[in-house]
């Protein structure tokens, strides 16, 4: 069986700076996979490279067995891949409703109301804020909106970039709970980038550790949580690998 997503030997550059140095990674259907690493390790670059921006300079990215390495971003996103990116990137001058509709833009779906109801079931707060401008939401609400918007395309693979960044612990738990719920009830596959390694590894089936653009460790969530070097670097006040 082919993996939902598989990367082999992927490299990417920002100008002359090499951000990814030969990444091998697979995500199977129905999994939650997390990618942990320090600031600047290349986690967000990896997420964006999967979406074709920046484009991988070498290596191969397969989605459902199809080589999408050279595809333009918008066509990759029309294959059922959605991303809630770093910094959330909410459309600040659009209403919450318009933001969510933008998520459903690709598919040109007719069952918009059904999709909206599903998002509201997950994040009731968004329904209360429906006609408010995205820019006026709190950080946590913006994160919910970013995830909700990504879900509006009814993706089979959801890329989540640091959903916990800057949020209160209670909100983080709420959002992680929502991710687990989605994975369990709809079988949604999730690739999660996190600095909050403890939470992420507890949530994930498997994890990868990214250091300076290379994957240095991989294993199940529980396995990685138990490793002393992970504990030292990412869990007990460390930040550097």
């Amino acid at each position: 069986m082919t993996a939902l997503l598989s990367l082999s030997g992927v490299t990417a550059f920002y100008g002359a700076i090499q951000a990814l140095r030969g990444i091998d990674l697979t995500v199977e259907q129905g999994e939650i996979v997390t990618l942990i690493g320090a600031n600047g390790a290349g986690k967000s670059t990896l997420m964006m490279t999967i979406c074709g921006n920046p484009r991988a300079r070498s290596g191969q990215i397969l989605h459902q067995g199809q080589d999408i390495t050279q595809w333009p971003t918008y066509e990759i996103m029309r294959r059922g891949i959605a991303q809630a990116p770093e910094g959330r990137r909410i459309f600040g001058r659009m209403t919450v409703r318009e933001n969510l509709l933008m998520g459903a833009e690709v598919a040109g779906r007719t069952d918009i109301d059904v999709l909206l109801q599903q998002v509201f079931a997950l994040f009731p707060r968004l329904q209360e804020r429906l006609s408010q401008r995205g820019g006026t939401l709190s950080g946590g609400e913006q994160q919910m909106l970013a995830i909700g918007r990504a879900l509006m395309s009814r993706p089979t693979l959801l890329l989540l970039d640091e959903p916990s960044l800057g949020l209160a612990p209670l909100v983080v738990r709420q959002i992680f709970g929502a991710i687990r719920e989605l994975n369990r009830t709809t079988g949604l596959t999730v690739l999660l980038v996190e600095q909050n390694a403890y939470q992420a590894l507890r949530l994930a089936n498997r994890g990868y550790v990214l250091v300076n653009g290379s994957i240095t460790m991989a294993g199940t969530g529980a396995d990685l949580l138990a490793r002393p070097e992970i504990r030292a670097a990412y869990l007990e006040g460390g930040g550097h690998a």
Partner: protein
Amino acid sequence: MAYALQQLINGITLGMIYGLIAVGYTMVYGIIGMINFAHGDVFMVGSFLSLIAILGLASLGITSVPLALVLTLLFAAAIAALYGWTVERVAYRPLRGSFRLAPLISAIGMSITLQNFVQVSQGARVKPIEAIIPGGIQLMDRGGFAVQLSWMQIAIVVITLTILAVFTWLVTKTPLGRTMRACEQDLKMASLLGIDTDLTISLTFVIGAALAAVAGFMFLLYYGVIDFYIGFIAGIKAFTAAVLGGIGSLPGAVLGGLLIGLIEVFWSAYFSVEYKDVAAFAILIVALIFLPTGILGKAEVEKV
């Protein structure tokens, strides 16, 4: 009093034309953050296309004025849209992702190219046309000064307001408009939502060019004289209007256009016609110094 009223009418008419051109500047700035200095020349091309269409239709024996004008408008808008699309494709898209000044320089080059193309292909002399919609109504007559409201002025205001109403509906209510606003706010995010951003940018140029062509059409009918150079001055004034109104803001572009039109007309009426361009550009300088975000411009607050 009567004199001032007449100037008000003239100023609003001129302001409408500037406003229509300014919308094109502000849309393109909003979406890719560049000033399309060739936009004024697309307006000029639009007025030449209108002239060609009017003469062509006349020679075909189409005598119904409304029919001829509608056909002319459609023809000019369609061909100018093609120009807008081509300009973006040829001169700006290859430079996307380059340093910020590159497309600006390319835009100035495109402006010169269009001017010279029209100069060479149409000749450098001014092209007059006889009044197609003559006459008007006399509003009042005070002390020997008659206040005139010509049919042409009414037509310009009505056409502009209609087009702006349709355009506003397009931008605020339709999926295409939503996509355009999304691209304007965050191009990268829009592409992550499966939007073909290159296509959206092209459409923005096409719409802007079509609006400029409508302005060019009305300019031709209103003034009755055009030449290959009209795009430069009108373009820079419309740019001033866009900056004054708040670059990136659509209502701001129209408001700025109206203000520039009024300032220019009242300045000419009460001070000196020779210095009317100076008045308009002084406004640009004042706006840039004291009100850089413009009247309706937005200062973005980012939330962490």
